[in-house]
């Protein structure tokens, strides 16, 4: 990478014009003790052949903070030592020769308070295309409390959402309306009514349902809220449907959100592809308008799925908790979409805990204090069905939304029956768990017992009993287990 190194033995002035190794410019400081107020990042660095790993790590620190490829005198107009990111530790990735975990500390002053757009532009905006790296992945970040406190955080949070819905003690149930595209507003509302009447708490627009020739957004909103009102009257429960306000411009998004609010929806949704700025704006709007904000993580798996290159979803989850969404799709483990159980556990903990301790087995590299920032409700959605209810509850706990799109709408007796099957299965598992039964081991029996009183559940179990999605995960945590005191 660097053809012009200072010959050994020759003293080189730091600010003489020319090229200097990043590690000599101050970006590699193995003795640096990260401050409590530093933002920390760990990258998985795969240098090109022949590139020294320390130099590669220092280059990542440099190119994600103040450096450029040659010495510049203007550095001397600044307190440059403060602004340089410091790579303070480089470890080999276990079982992955040629890859290294590089730990980098960034001074708090490098960042604008309360801005994910600024944070991401800084950390991932430049360095990922750097030629001397074969691949680069942002694995995890640590945010000091000083920085966390500059964010609004989730507009509603798990506790207040439950209080508004008056639903305590079990996961919430949802379903995405299917088919993904093509239904008109009136027909779409039929699906919403049947599913909510049958027992689900929520239905959901799919990520690509916005405003298309087959259904204008206003017609969807009007028919959906008719369906929600009828379902509330039929059940006595608070019901909702995630009205997707994603649109081409921010102004259009606000227009759609205002209409959803006017019609009385408890919740709206947006897609990750609207961008970090829009997401923060919508979180602010949601708080101001007493509305729950659901985020679909549309597009994330283009960059979160491969270990070598991209951004880990755990970083996205942290950014989204700061940005202020109330729901985030975070994986099902047993469904149709990628999600290793250990990594998914890490994502769920990031959403729900006030403090995440280091847990390398779950991909958590740093202690992270959330300073009482509201908690995000993780959403499990994608190819799950009633026959897996015991596994879902065991693995994901009760503070989540379980969404069964195909698993409701594909029921042989119809949508209402599909919803009822899911609700009965869930209540039966939660009841049994609380009563002290081993739901993971006895799950199938518990579901069979419940199915005796519920034909809809009986049929659901029969229809999907052989459905599993067994593929190897593309993304699993890499760590060296450390010996515990007991060992």
């Amino acid at each position, binding site marked *: 990478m660097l053809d012009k190194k200072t010959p050994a033995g020759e003293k080189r002035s730091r600010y003489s014009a020319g090229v200097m190794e990043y590690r000599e410019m101050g970006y590699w400081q193995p003795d640096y003790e990260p401050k409590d107020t530093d933002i920390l990042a760990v990258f998985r660095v795969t240098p090109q052949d022949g590139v020294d790993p320390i130099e590669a790590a220092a280059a990542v620190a440099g190119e994600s903070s103040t450096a450029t490829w040659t010495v510049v005198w203007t550095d001397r107009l600044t307190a440059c030592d403060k602004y340089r990111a410091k790579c303070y530790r480089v470890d080999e990735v276990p079982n992955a020769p040629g890859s290294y975990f590089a730990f980098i500390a960034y001074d708090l002053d490098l960042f604008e308070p309360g801005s994910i757009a600024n944070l991401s532009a800084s950390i991932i905006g430049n360095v990922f295309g750097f030629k001397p790296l074969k691949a680069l992945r942002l694995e995890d970040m640590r945010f000091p409390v000083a920085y966390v406190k500059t964010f609004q955080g989730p507009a509603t949070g798990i*506790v207040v959402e439950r209080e508004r819905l*008056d639903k305590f*003690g079990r996961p919430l149930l949802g379903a995405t309306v299917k088919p993904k595209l093509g239904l008109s507003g009136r027909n779409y509302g039929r699906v919403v009514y049947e599913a909510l009447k049958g027992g689900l708490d929520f239905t959901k627009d799919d990520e690509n349902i916005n405003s298309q020739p087959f259904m204008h957004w206003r017609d969807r909103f009007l028919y959906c809220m008719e369906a929600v*009102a009828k379902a509330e009257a039929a059940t006595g429960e608070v019901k909702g449907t995630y009205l997707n306000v994603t649109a081409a411009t921010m102004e259009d998004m606000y227009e759609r959100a205002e209409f959803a609010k006017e019609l009385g929806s408890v919740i709206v949704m947006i897609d990750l592809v609207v961008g970090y700025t829009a997401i923060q704006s919508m979180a602010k709007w949601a708080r101001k308008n007493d509305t729950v904000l659901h985020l679909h993580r549309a597009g994330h798996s283009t960059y979160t799925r491969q270990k070598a290159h991209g951004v880990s979803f755990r970083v996205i989850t942290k950014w989204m908790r700061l940005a202020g969404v109330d729901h985030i799709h975070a994986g099902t483990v047993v469904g149709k979409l990628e999600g290793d159980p250990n990594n998914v556990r890490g994502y769920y903990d990031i959403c729900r805990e006030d403090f995440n301790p280091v847990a390398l087995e779950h991909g958590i590299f740093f202690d992270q204090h959330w300073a*009482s920032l509201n*908690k995000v409700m993780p959403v499990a959605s994608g190819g799950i069905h009633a026959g897996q209810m015991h596994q879902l509850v065991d693995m994901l706990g009760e503070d989540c939304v379980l969404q069964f799109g195909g698993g409701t709408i594909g029921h042989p007796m119809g949508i209402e029956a599909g919803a009822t099957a899911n*609700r009965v299965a869930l*209540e039966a598992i939660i009841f049994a768990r609380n*009563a002290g039964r081993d739901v993971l081991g006895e799950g199938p029996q518990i579901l069979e017992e*419940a199915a005796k009183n519920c034909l809809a559940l009986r049929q659901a179990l029969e229809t999907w009993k052989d459905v599993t999605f067994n593929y190897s995960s593309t993304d699993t945590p890499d760590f060296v287990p450390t010996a515990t005191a007991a060992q």
Partner: protein
Amino acid sequence: MRVTQGCFSFLPDLTDAQIRTQVQYCIDKGWAVNIEFTDDPHPRNTYWEMWGLPMFDVKDAAAIMLELDACRKVHGGRKYIRLSGFDSTHGWESVRLSFLVGRPAEEPGFILTRNELGGQVIQYTLQARPLPGA
């Protein structure tokens, strides 16, 4: 109709033995068990009438079941009765489990009123029908 509020309304009505398992679960978790009743099952009616105070210091499921019996003597078969567990720890300070343990003999349900504001927008109002004997 059947109001399906609470955690277990889609299961057959719970027996006392079953209710007691859930009470024990709340006690084991350190949550305060609370009994409430109402004649207004509107989903936005947050504040049901409290039967006494939350039982912060009662760690005996049998004692709680006695309180529930006492409440039923007065309101059983006439009002909705619910039981909940309250968690006062940081990060929650809210109800963690809530389920119906009593219903009026007849549940008259709700009326949905549509107020047509002009154009396609409808303003919905949900009203709980009065319970028999109210």
